[in-house]
């Protein structure tokens, strides 16, 4: 019997992608579909004096033009995570309107939507909308935003802070330890803003069926059920059962397609107004101006060492921009996804991080690729390398001195950090040792000395990281401010013929779920992969889900599916026992059949499935059918770790950096499909 787990099974989704037959949102056409274009502000901060849509209204092919003065002006998109001020004051949550009414707060903020028969006509008419602005001074730097005379993003509050927050040990204790440290290394830098730039621009189609009173939103999202919940309960006030969200193929997300965007709600509202479907697809310029950005932190950090190079304390102050409004998960990023990783892989006994999160006149930020955690790793690894240089120590040696010793989390407890988390297991020195071997560290140092003699600048960068993944236990994130649970749903529907449909709340946008999820279900049931179909991305098919982000699909979504398969096998055993006239405990399940132990009497999975749907000769009191759905809520995060090392040469004249060698040595847990794991790591390293 062929098994699949751990094998480089080729991806099933590739056939359609390679033939150009993927179904991305912009590929979908509905009968009578119109096209939308937006009028967006060229200014970061301005008062809107007037919006004149009269010429656009009567332009060729125009179906409708809306501004905030129409019905949609009442609605705004919400934030899904609350981080209050240290003094107990509630997080400041400004209304994030679907269209700006009185004031512009970032370049690209939409003022009007123009809906027309074709994209070209919508764009033509959008150019006829005349907006008069009174341009105001803007603040784009999170540190400057907190200066007393900084222009205000939201006038209703006395300053630009959305919240402030801290984590770790008492600040005074950390400061005292730094004051008496043998050596203190300081770093002041900007972790700059990034634009995620998934290769597929965001795209939405809203459709309203007046007879069924039902909305359908086709959307390029990582997170269909959460979009439905937010759109219905928190924006438009539509009953949830009256909305279907469809997200078929999505061309990459990297975080930027987790969030509920204003355009999704506005199109949904407008489609009902005009009684026709509306499509809007972002162009690349709009993507830069409106997709949630990442990072934008200004960091001031101090790390203290004793005379042997042991870290004694670490104190950091950060200004972390929120942008103009609070995007869906923005407050979590520089706090619970960032500060909780400040232990890194080191035994630092005293840690304190203080974060001030101001509004700025910029595109809202949110999670991008790891979100908060890579920013923590960047700080720790840079400051340790800088300290090694200052103390004239080898950067690898300094790390070895400070690593948390190996622990397996089974024969000994997990590692309790100073910043709230308990790591599951780890061997940090193991991955660094292996990484150094792979890069040839000792030989490199000789090579480097030789190169320097010849006027070449050859250097090595080392990073040993840990991440909190498999997001996340609902109760934990709830206590940290999340306004949603973070479980996952896995539904396994066995057909009468023994063929299996798996419906998952995890969304696939390049990760290969259709292949990997089928691999482990096939092994668990002992049936061929071809007998299993994986479905995702349609809220009318999949009961519920929390989507894909935070490395959670397999760890959380996969576990939910496993739970449902277990229920299938448990019920199947009852049917098998009845048919085989044996006791359940005398049966064993292997290779797709139940066998009476020690005999050749058996019944196949297919026959049991058929019996479940044709229950003529059937166990008394047992319900027909083989169909189970499960919710899985993890008990902890998962904590993968690893070492990445780069050898680079810098041209002394131009500053051009040439990567000579790069090694990645990662703890990835149990491997379902090594081909896909390698591909994910390649992509992560390069992006």
């Amino acid at each position, binding site marked *: 019997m062929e098994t699949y787990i751990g094998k480089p099974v080729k991806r099933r989704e590739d056939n359609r992608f390679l033939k150009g037959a993927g179904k991305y949102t912009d590929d979908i056409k509905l009968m009578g579909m119109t096209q939308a274009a937006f009028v967006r502000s060229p200014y970061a901060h301005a008062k809107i004096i007037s919006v004149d849509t009269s010429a656009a209204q009567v332009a060729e092919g125009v179906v409708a033009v809306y501004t905030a003065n129409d019905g949609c002006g009442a609605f705004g998109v919400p934030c899904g995570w609350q981080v209050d001020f240290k003094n107990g004051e509630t997080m400041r949550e400004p209304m994030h309107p679907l269209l700006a009414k009185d004031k512009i707060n970032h370049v690209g903020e939409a003022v009007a939507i123009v809906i027309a028969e074709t994209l070209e006509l919508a764009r033509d008419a959008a150019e006829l909308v005349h907006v008069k602005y009174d341009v105001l001074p803007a603040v784009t730097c999170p540190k400057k935003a907190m200066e007393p005379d900084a222009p205000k993003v939201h006038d209703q509050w006395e300053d630009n802070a959305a919240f402030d927050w801290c984590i770790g040990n008492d600040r005074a204790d950390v400061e005292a330890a730094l004051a008496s440290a043998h050596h203190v290394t300081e770093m002041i830098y900007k972790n700059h803003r990034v634009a995620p730039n998934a290769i597929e621009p965001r795209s939405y189609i809203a459709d309203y069926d007046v007879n069924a009173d039902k909305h359908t939103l086709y959307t390029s999202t990582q997170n269909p059920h959460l979009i439905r919940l937010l759109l219905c309960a928190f924006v438009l006030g539509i009953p949830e059962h009256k909305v279907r969200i469809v997200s078929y193929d999505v061309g*990459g997300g990297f975080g930027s397609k987790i969030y509920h965007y204003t355009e999704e709600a506005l199109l949904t509202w407008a489609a009902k107004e005009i009684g026709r479907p509306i499509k809007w697809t972002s*162009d*690349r310029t709009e993507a830069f101006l409106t997709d949630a950005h990442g990072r934008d932190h200004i960091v001031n950090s101090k790390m203290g060492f004793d005379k042997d190079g042991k870290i004694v304390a670490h104190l950091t102050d950060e200004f972390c921009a929120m942008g103009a409004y609070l995007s869906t998960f923005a407050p979590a990023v520089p706090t619970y996804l960032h500060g909780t990783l400040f232990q890194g892989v080191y035994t630092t006994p005293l840690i304190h991080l203080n974060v001030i999160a101001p509004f700025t006149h910029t595109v809202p930020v949110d999670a991008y690729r790891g979100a908060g955690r890579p920013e923590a790793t960047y700080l720790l690894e840079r400051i340790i390398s800088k300290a090694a240089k200052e103390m004239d120590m080898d950067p690898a040696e300094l790390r070895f001195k400070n690593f948390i010793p190996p622990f397996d989390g089974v024969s000994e407890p997990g590692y309790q950090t100073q910043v709230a988390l308990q790591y599951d297991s780890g061997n940090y020195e193991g991955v660094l040792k292996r990484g150094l071997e792979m890069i040839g560290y000792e030989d490199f140092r000789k090579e480097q000395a030789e190169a320097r003699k010849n006027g070449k600048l050859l250097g090595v960068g080392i990073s040993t990281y840990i991440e909190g993944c498999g997001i996340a236990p609902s109760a934990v994130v709830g206590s940290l401010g999340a306004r949603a649970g973070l479980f996952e749903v896995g539904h396994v529907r066995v057909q009468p013929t023994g063929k299996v449909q798996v419906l998952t709340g995890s969304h696939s946008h390049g990760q290969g779920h259709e292949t990997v999820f089928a691999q482990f279900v096939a092994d668990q049931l002992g049936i061929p992969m071809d007998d299993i179909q994986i479905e995702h991305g349609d809220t009318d098919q999949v009961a519920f889900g929390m989507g894909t982000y935070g490395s959670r699909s397999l760890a959380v979504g996969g576990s939910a599916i496993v739970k449902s398969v277990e229920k299938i096998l448990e019920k199947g055993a009852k049917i098998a026992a009845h048919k085989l006239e044996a006791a359940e405990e005398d049966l064993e399940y292997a290779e797709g059949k139940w066998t009476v132990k020690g005999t050749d009497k058996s019944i196949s999975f297919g026959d049991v499935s058929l019996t479940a749907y044709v229950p003529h000769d059937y166990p008394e009191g047992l319900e027909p059918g083989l169909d189970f759905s499960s919710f899985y809520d993890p008990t902890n995060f998962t904590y993968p770790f690893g070492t990445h090392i780069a050898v680079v040469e810098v041209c002394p004249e131009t500053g051009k950096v040439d990567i000579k060698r790069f090694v990645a040595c990662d703890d990835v847990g149990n491997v379902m499909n090594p081909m896909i794991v390698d591909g994910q790591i390649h992509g992560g*390293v390069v992006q």
Partner: protein
Amino acid sequence: MQISVKINGKRYEHDIEPRISLAQYLRETLNLTGTHIGCDTSGCGACTVHVDGAAAKACTLLAVQVDGCEMTTIEGMANGNEMHPIQEAFKEHHGLQCGFCTPGMVMTAADIIKNNPNPSEEEIRHGLEGNFCRCTGYHNIVKSIQHAADKINA
């Protein structure tokens, strides 16, 4: 304006607005949605097609410019269910993840191999400079093209 083109072996005649891009024409008029639009400015290469045998970016060509041309899009690469060796190689070597850049990658790969049947890794990377992928880090794309070239030459 009236245009007459041959795409994937089929002849089409259309009266088309002069401002419509080739990419829009393929997607909206012919429903050939495998040609993707990622940037609108020739930067990302997701819209790469073959015009008279050479790779071209369909987002910055006007449909009227290809009047009289013969073209191949991603939909014309496979022979029914039988994939082109380049498509096979991308599947075999995991040269794609989300799939959005993939049609453009395959079309550019075909152009690279056509002009240089035995491309080195460096030559492949140089040839891919006009095609962006955000998922794979390019490593497996380069590998796929090398293997495809070997297979086509064999």
